[in-house]
């Protein structure tokens, strides 16, 4: 979309956009559009809802551009806005926030498929692997799934995940650790 230099940090691009450079926003958007979209798509499981939330977040960023201060990484800021929007969506649709956001010690582990189930075939088609991975991700508690997506799609570190989700470092770490363990078992990963 825009051939902006990759050396320029997200924060610098956002500052440029704050000061009136629309092209800087396009570069920033290009960097994060896929990850943020998949974050919502995996969390909601519906393309229409994902698009709605995705658009809401970007419009929110656009309207708040003059208040932007680079006190944290832009990706942390972006996923913090996304997390808040997702929580609002949970409240409006379910009337409550999923319990997994309240319990850092991975509730719902029992609902996961038994990792000691039938051995997957040695050679799996990429498509089959992807389907299983997505199914496993969908079976994760929302909070664990969110931690995984923030790292995998947004590139956030544990500290940044904690900041974006509004929880402590240990809580974020616990959520991500459980998510990774379950997904690895689903993939049959043993040695990485």
């Amino acid at each position, binding site marked *: 979309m825009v051939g902006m230099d990759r050396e320029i940090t997200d924060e610098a691009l956002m500052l440029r956009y704050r000061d009136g450079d629309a092209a800087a926003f396009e570069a920033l958007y290009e960097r994060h559009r*896929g990850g943020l979209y998949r974050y919502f798509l995996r969390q909601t499981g519906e393309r229409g809802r994902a698009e709605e939330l995705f658009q809401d977040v970007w419009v929110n960023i656009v309207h708040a551009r003059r208040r932007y201060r680079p006190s944290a990484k832009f990706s942390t800021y972006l996923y913090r806005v996304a997390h808040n929007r997702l929580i609002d969506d949970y409240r409006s649709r379910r009337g409550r926030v999923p319990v997994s956001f309240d319990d850092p010690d991975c509730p719902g582990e029992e609902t996961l498929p038994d990792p000691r189930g039938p051995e997957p075939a040695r050679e799996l088609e990429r498509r089959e692997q992807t389907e299983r*991975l997505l199914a496993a991700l969908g079976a994760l508690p929302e909070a664990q799934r969110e931690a995984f997506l923030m790292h995998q799609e947004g590139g956030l570190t544990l500290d940044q995940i904690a900041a974006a989700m509004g929880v402590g470092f240990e809580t974020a770490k616990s959520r991500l650790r459980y998510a990774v363990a379950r997904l690895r078992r689903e993939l049959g990963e043993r040695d990485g």
Partner: protein
Amino acid sequence: MAERDDELEHYLKGGSKLSRAWREAADEEPNADLDEVIIEAARREVHRGPKVAYSPFSRSWGVPLALAAVLVVSVTVTLVMHEDASEPLPVPVDGAPAAPAPAAEAQSPKAPAVPKREEPRAPEPALKEHVRPDSREREATPRQAAPAPFAGQALKPPAESAARKQALPSAPATPQQEENAAAAATRAKVEDAGRVQEMAPEEWLARIEELRRQGKQAEADALLAEFKKRFPDYPLDARPK
């Protein structure tokens, strides 16, 4: 727990099978229409200019305050113009001294007090606006007592005419002129006393006789002539000589 921590560390480094599998799986992207909507919104926001320049106060009160300010200024200007229209217009007087210019005074503080004769100049309406005294000063004094820019000078005889009058006595005059002047002076004295209308004919005659006794024949003659005008039917048998 330690095993899971190691597992997490390995995953966070990004080289795990899970990471690779995820990268292969994650290929969904937002559609182009959605991209366009968001990019367009971002551009519009930039072109809309700074929003923080308008505080909530200025947003809600800016327009009413501006209208009120315009109204106040309009009323003030209208009142000032009305006052100016009701003020007596300055009477242009030939040779009347112009209003003292502060700058000129500053330049020649030791200049003689005698006003220099200036060329007659046409009235300058625009100048009136500039030399108009401060409105607060005008309000502080009664309106009729307020000095109009040229009113005082207009009532006074022109300086040139006064000088000409002062020069008259030294000029040679005919006897007839002297008599006329004396008669005028006498009539003026009588009129100034306010008694001309009230004096009875006998008093007129007594006055004329008195003047003749004092040797003021010209004045007596002038007064007699006036007497004849006023009392043409009065018998002058006992008319003073």
